[in-house]
């Protein structure tokens, strides 16, 4: 009697991201998350004093911006149609987050030929490994133009 995990011939995988999830289900789930976020941001303002949104622990501990600092406020600004304020909060996240659904779908096997030239570049990990830490450092430099990358 073969164990279900042995079918592929490998050892049992403890953490397995689902690989065969229907793309449509993922899209519906993603749209639900976006809609839920938009509703939450109508009623709760992360800019308000005493906001219930969790703060960044790295910023609380060091006073420095992390890569994700300003994302909550940027999403709040986007939910209110204010792209410029969103870019002020976290320009990289605002540029990168719209790519994420496509990159996520790529990892789940949705690879339309028309997107392949772009995806081949985006799905290379080394540029990200350089870009994200570089952004982390750059947005904490106090001089223009780097100061523009800081949250807020």
């Amino acid at each position, binding site marked *: 009697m073969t164990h279900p995990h042995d079918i592929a011939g490998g050892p049992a995988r403890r*953490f397995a*991201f689902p690989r065969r999830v229907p793309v449509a289900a993922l899209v519906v789930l993603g749209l639900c998350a976006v809609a839920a976020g938009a509703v939450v941001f109508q009623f709760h303002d992360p800019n308000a004093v005493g906001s219930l949104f*969790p703060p960044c622990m790295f910023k609380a501990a060091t006073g420095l911006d992390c*890569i994700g600092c300003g994302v909550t406020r940027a999403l709040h600004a986007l939910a209110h149609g204010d792209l410029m304020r969103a870019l002020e909060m976290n320009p990289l996240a605002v540029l990168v987050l719209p790519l994420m659904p496509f990159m996520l779908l790529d*990892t789940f096997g949705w690879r339309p030929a028309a997107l392949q030239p772009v995806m081949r570049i985006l*799905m290379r*990990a080394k540029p990200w490994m350089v870009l994200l*830490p570089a952004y982390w450092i750059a947005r904490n430099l106090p001089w223009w133009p780097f100061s523009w990358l800081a949250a807020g």
Partner: protein
Amino acid sequence: MSVPPTGNSRIPSHMVWAILTTLLCCLPFGIVSIVFAAKVDGLQAAGDIAGAQEASNKAKMWAMIAAGSGVVAGILWFALVGLSMMGQMSGM
């Protein structure tokens, strides 16, 4: 073992999860995950399948740790908020 559904058997680098956890909860674990994700393709191209698989597993593990610690931090934060609200109410 873990072969993506399309294309030639590319070992998954789990890079998108690494980027997402770095951007959305920004714990250093996300960066660790990206470093391992970046190793996967190079090792596979060099023919080191076992090494690539190991890097892939580590990238996945660190992405899970990053996401998990983000969730735990969120739960702790809201527990704290709840406690301080209860404290305020009982103080009134």
